[in-house]
């Protein structure tokens, strides 16, 4: 086995933009802003309802674990959350915007704010592991040097072997490829991270490293949504304080099921109250807290430039 990279001593600097509003408020109160809200989301495939009227919310700095048996609808739900799958009904609100109301040309600008690990993550086989991770930051407009440094940190964080950093992905083992994809989803601590079975095929050490990296992303203010059918990985996340939602037949059947109204904030409350979150009256609408430039249309290049993201 290749030697692991040491974990970074200090977490990388948090990116500006979407986080700035979150930081100022979350520092003083336990109130958190919902980065992702799904409202009555349903999705059918080949005539079968895969996700059935699911409503949930993931706040900044929160890890939510979606559990469920095979075919429960986890992957579809996570795909919807990551703006990769369009649901048949409901609302998908990321950063305060209903993305289903956006033009398709705006969708890339939503996706670059989401670190998504699909069930079978695509990688560029003839590029190195490092370059594959750097691509996520290239799309977000980071400069090459900072992208390289952040990508190395991200690979370290998930326990990727140092010697394989410059090896083409096509020459890596299945587990190493999985780690590259996880590192790419979490690099740069995007506002929303959606991981579908991040621990699949990994050994115990790697699973632990991935869970720790998710904890680091959480502490950086990312909203993390993770689907896993692996009990040991779920146990790791639960120990680290992740919220758990249970899916069965496409419907939420357990955990912190909740309905969040548009513009409301959510606050974690003790589990003995029977609900994981309480709806609190809005101080200001969530839309106002967000960096508008995160969701601009492709045509509005000036607005994007003004935001300093490109």
């Amino acid at each position, binding site marked *: 086995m290749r030697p692991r990279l040491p974990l970074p001593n200090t977490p990388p600097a948090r990116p500006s933009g979407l986080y700035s509003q979150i930081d100022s408020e979350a520092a003083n109160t336990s109130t958190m802003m919902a980065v992702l809200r799904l409202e009555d989301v349903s999705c059918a495939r080949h005539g079968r309802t895969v996700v059935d009227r699911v409503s949930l919310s993931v706040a900044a700095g929160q890890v939510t674990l979606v559990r469920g048996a095979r075919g429960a609808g986890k992957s579809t739900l996570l795909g919807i959350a990551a703006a990769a799958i369009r649901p048949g009904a409901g609302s998908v609100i990321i950063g305060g915007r209903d993305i289903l109301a956006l033009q398709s*040309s705006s969708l890339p600008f939503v*996706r*670059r704010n*989401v670190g998504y690990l699909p069930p079978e993550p695509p*990688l560029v086989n003839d590029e190195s592991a490092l370059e594959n991770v750097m691509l*996520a930051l290239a*799309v977000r407009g980071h400069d*090459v040097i900072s992208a390289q440094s952040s990508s190395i940190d991200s690979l370290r964080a998930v326990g990727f072997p140092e010697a394989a950093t410059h090896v083409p992905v096509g020459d890596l083992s299945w587990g190493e490829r999985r780690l590259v994809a996880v590192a790419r989803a979490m690099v740069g601590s995007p506002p929303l991270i959606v991981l579908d079975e991040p621990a699949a095929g990994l050994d115990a050490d790697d699973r632990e490293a991935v869970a720790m990296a998710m904890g680091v992303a959480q502490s950086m203010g990312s909203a993390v949504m993770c689907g896993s059918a692996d009990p040991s990985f779920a146990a790791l996340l639960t120990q680290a304080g992740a919220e758990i939602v249970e899916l069965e037949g496409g419907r939420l059947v357990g955990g912190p099921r909740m309905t969040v109204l548009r513009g409301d904030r959510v606050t974690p409350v003790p589990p003995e109250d029977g609900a994981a979150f309480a709806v609190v009256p809005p101080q200001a609408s969530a839309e106002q807290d967000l960096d508008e430039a995160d969701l601009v249309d492709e045509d509005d290049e000036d607005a994007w430039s003004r935001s300093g993201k490109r």
Partner: protein
Amino acid sequence: MNFDWTLRRMQRAVKRQPAPLVALGGAFALLVLLMGAARVVSQIADSVLPRLAENVHVIAYLRDDMTADKAQALAEIVSRVPGVERVRAVDSAEALARLRAEAKSMGGVAEFLDGVEEGFLPRSLEVRLQATTSLSERAVALAERLRRIPGIAEVDAMEDGLARLRSVLGLLRGLGWSLFGLAVVAGVAVLVLPLVQGRQRRQQEVAVLTLLGETPAGIRRPWALAGGLSAVAGALSAWLVLWLAHLTLSSSLAAVLGSWVPGPLPFVAWHEMLLATVVALFAGFWIGQRAMPSLKGRYV
């Protein structure tokens, strides 16, 4: 993806997947080479044809009862036939003088013509046609028309010479069509090879970039840039090859063809070279950005 990343992605695309770009550059090089070769053939044809045409005459022998005035009037009429460059009335004395001169040049048989009377050879019209690629066909057609005119006893369309001319022109025509066929094949290769190769090899990268939130324009940009630069590189290398070929081969080609005088360098006009290179650049851009899998359905 900003410009720095676009350049970086382009460099890496060239390094990782050179085949589509080499195919693109090579195809453009072939296209330009064929264009240049066609230009050389055209220059040779332009140079050789008038010299061949100089020796091609249709000669109409007039009947004995045709007076000089009538012959001149007939020459006027024939000179107005389209494609006729010049008509000259040759009387029997001049015809005999020519025959003597020719016999002398062939070597010492001119004495046999000493006893020939002045009016032995018939008066004739010597018709010279304009030099075009259809010279031989027009000569035959004109001969047919002249035979039907009263006062003309016989027409010599120089069938032997025309047959030789026809074979030369046929050769040039065949060469031209071959070059055209090759240019068509090269044109198809320019379009198809990089498109097919690019679409096969870029599946993964497109899947990754769409997942990460790159816009369609951002995905295409590095490949468009690489395509444009490959096409220009191919075109420029072909110009260089043609230039060197012209420098080294033109004198020997001129010696073989005899009448061909090679033009000064560059044998293709500067503005034509510039135009072809700019066309290659934009065609390369276009092909480069389409040499990738479809983005339909990836942003739904």
